[in-house]
């Protein structure tokens, strides 16, 4: 996937543009522009207003979901949509294993399952830009990336094992009122592969490539933000049917800038 295919995803979002009400368990995020890690200097990404789940989806949330939608149960899921390890930490279709916690983020879920969950709740997965936009905030600032402490806290998490076993809501609430973007699990994004780090990340720096290069000095805007490099590398390593011990998700919902403004479809 690349920037062009990304455009095809936009109509998918339009479905949700009719939802306006502030939703329970979601935080409003005022849109804006920001400089993402990838792309050349001056390439800013625009983010519209939206709402984001305050917490990642938990095991309990996901049990409720598969109770309602049996096709996403451990025993019933199509191999095309999820690999063997799907809900590996669950005892059976509706119960988690001993030692797991209902209030821990659900992991071992595929992109297909995460996407279905959000859609069935009238939401969708966040785009990489939306996720990164919210995740660049710390407790005080909407963009804390220049603060050394911001990077250090994220890296400290990367170096702490088994954080996926923790329960939600224990990390500090960020500027937008959102918890756990850092410190708990990686999270699926809708277009996780649109910013690509290929298996051989070092060659993505070629002049012909207008994609982000994970490791090359040429492509990135902030070489010291290596915590973000690792996120982009992670996204580049997964496929939509993968299910991973450290990977969960949360949902978002678009919210137009003005309530009565007519919707322009692309």
């Amino acid at each position, binding site marked *: 996937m690349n920037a062009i295919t990304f455009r095809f995803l936009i109509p998918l979002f339009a479905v949700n543009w009719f939802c306006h009400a502030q939703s329970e368990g979601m935080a409003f995020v005022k849109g804006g522009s920001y400089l993402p890690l990838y792309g050349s200097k001056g390439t800013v990404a625009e983010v519209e207003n939206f709402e984001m789940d305050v917490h990642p989806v938990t095991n309990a949330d996901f049990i409720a979901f598969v109770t309602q939608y049996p096709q996403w149960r451990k025993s019933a899921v199509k191999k095309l949509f999820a690999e063997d390890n799907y809900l590996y930490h669950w005892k059976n279709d509706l119960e988690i294993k001993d030692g797991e916690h209902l209030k821990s983020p659900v992991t071992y879920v595929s992109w297909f399952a995460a996407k279905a969950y959000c859609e069935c709740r009238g939401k969708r997965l966040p785009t990489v830009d939306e996720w990164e936009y919210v995740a660049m905030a710390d407790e005080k600032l909407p963009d804390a990336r220049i603060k050394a402490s911001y990077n250090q806290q994220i*890296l400290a998490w990367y170096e702490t*094992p088994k954080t996926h076993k923790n329960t939600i809501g224990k990390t500090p609430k960020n500027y937008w009122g959102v918890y756990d973007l850092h410190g708990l699990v990686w999270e699926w994004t809708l277009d996780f592969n649109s910013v690509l780090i*290929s298996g051989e990340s070092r060659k993505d720096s070629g002049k012909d490539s207008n994609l982000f290069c994970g490791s090359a000095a040429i492509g990135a805007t902030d070489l010291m933000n290596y915590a973000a490099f690792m996120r982009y590398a992670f996204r*580049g390593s997964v496929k939509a049917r*993968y299910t991973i011990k450290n990977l969960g998700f949360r949902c978002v919902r678009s919210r137009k800038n003005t309530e009565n403004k007519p919707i322009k479809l692309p």
Partner: protein
Amino acid sequence: MNPFIQNKFRGRPYKLLVYGFIILFAFSCEKKEKEAYAYTAKTPDLKETKAELTSPPRVPEPVGKRRARKLIVEMEILEEEGEMADGVSYVYWTFGGTVPGSFIRTRVGDEVEFHLKNHPDNKLPHNIDLHAVTGPGGGAESSFVAPGHEKVFSFKVLNPGLYVYHCATAPVGMHIANGMYGLILVEPEGGLPLVDKEYYVMQGDFYTKGKNGEKGLQAFDMRKAVDERPDYVVFNGKVGALTGDNAITANVGETVRIYMGNGGPNLVSSFHVIGEIFDKVYAEGGSLENENVQTTLIPAGGAAIVEFRVEVPGSFVLVDHSIFRAFNKGALGMLNVQGEGNKTIYSGELREETYQPGEKKTRSVPATEEIAELRAPARSPEERVNAGKQVYMQTCFACHQAEGQGIPGAFPPLAKSDFLNADVNRAIDVVLSGLTGEITVNGEKYNSIMTPQNLSDDEIANVLAYIYNSWGNSKKNVTPAMVTKVRNKKL
């Protein structure tokens, strides 16, 4: 003859010479074959086998004369906390649970089926770039693997040599700096010549938030890494990985081969073994053989094979001869050689004589307790301390360092030393008789060898007075009489 270059015999000598040669060869070859390739019996001629992988400093069994085959390499990536130095821990990213990663041994023509497994507990995706691979990214492109997944790819090893492998996932430098590198050996057809001992050593530079020696779990420091200012430069992943109990060993008369790699990420290594000369170096791990080399340069992401015969017993110290790295950042290892001494090769100290420019040599002084009588002993405790400082700088400084701080993992500190302050007679005995075996100093274990010091009772009293009156020690006074008493008890 260079084993990496399989030159065919090209000359056209006289018939007689040829026959003579054949006869000679027929008589000599049987024994030689047996000597060089006895170990091939252990490697039967299979079409497909699982490769033996070893942790440093061990290496797998030699390939010998076996035919090329399909070799299955199964390597697991583990992100786990380990010890960088005493009290200093670090989250290493590893191939096979060690830094450097498991050693892979192949021969030219092998087809390697590589299984790269990313443990489900790991946080990050990884891949592997093997410099022995001819193909995009050295395999990195085909092996990019998410946690809880396994990637399989295969390659044929075309060129003999010693090659580095490493992770090449973004940010590449960080993956290497966290320990993701190792060596793969591709033996030439027929194998490398047999040696008695083979070891696997790899240098790496590490960048921690705290400065060298700062205790606790240390985070990676990107700024220092970009600036190429490492806090640790070490062999086999940590300070002391090759000292004390972990020292590599050999016996007098044996040939030692070290597969020496440099994972970097930044520094090149000036690899040297103190007190040895490399009889042979396969420069940069390739086909060029150099002989009689003191120090060989190993680029970051490069390797060398060094070989030497150990002739005399003792401790031989492996260092990066960019020497502050060795004595201040950890790039120091030990090769302990046991066996009979050989006085013609190395005599040890024979005698000590006085020296005064322009004057005729007056007296030959045997290095025994007589010296005490021959020299004017220092009188006051103050004079004793001053005289002791000179002895210290000549004799003790190299190991125990200028401020008595010692070298972590290798030589114990004398500053504020509980071991020293606890027992003055023991301290005297250590200087007199040396010390071997494990001791605990200020809560940390040391296991290296201090040789007996060839000093007079007066000099021993002086140097101990200096040590006891420096660096926060107990200020105990030590007199030659005390030393003589301990010496006589020994006798």
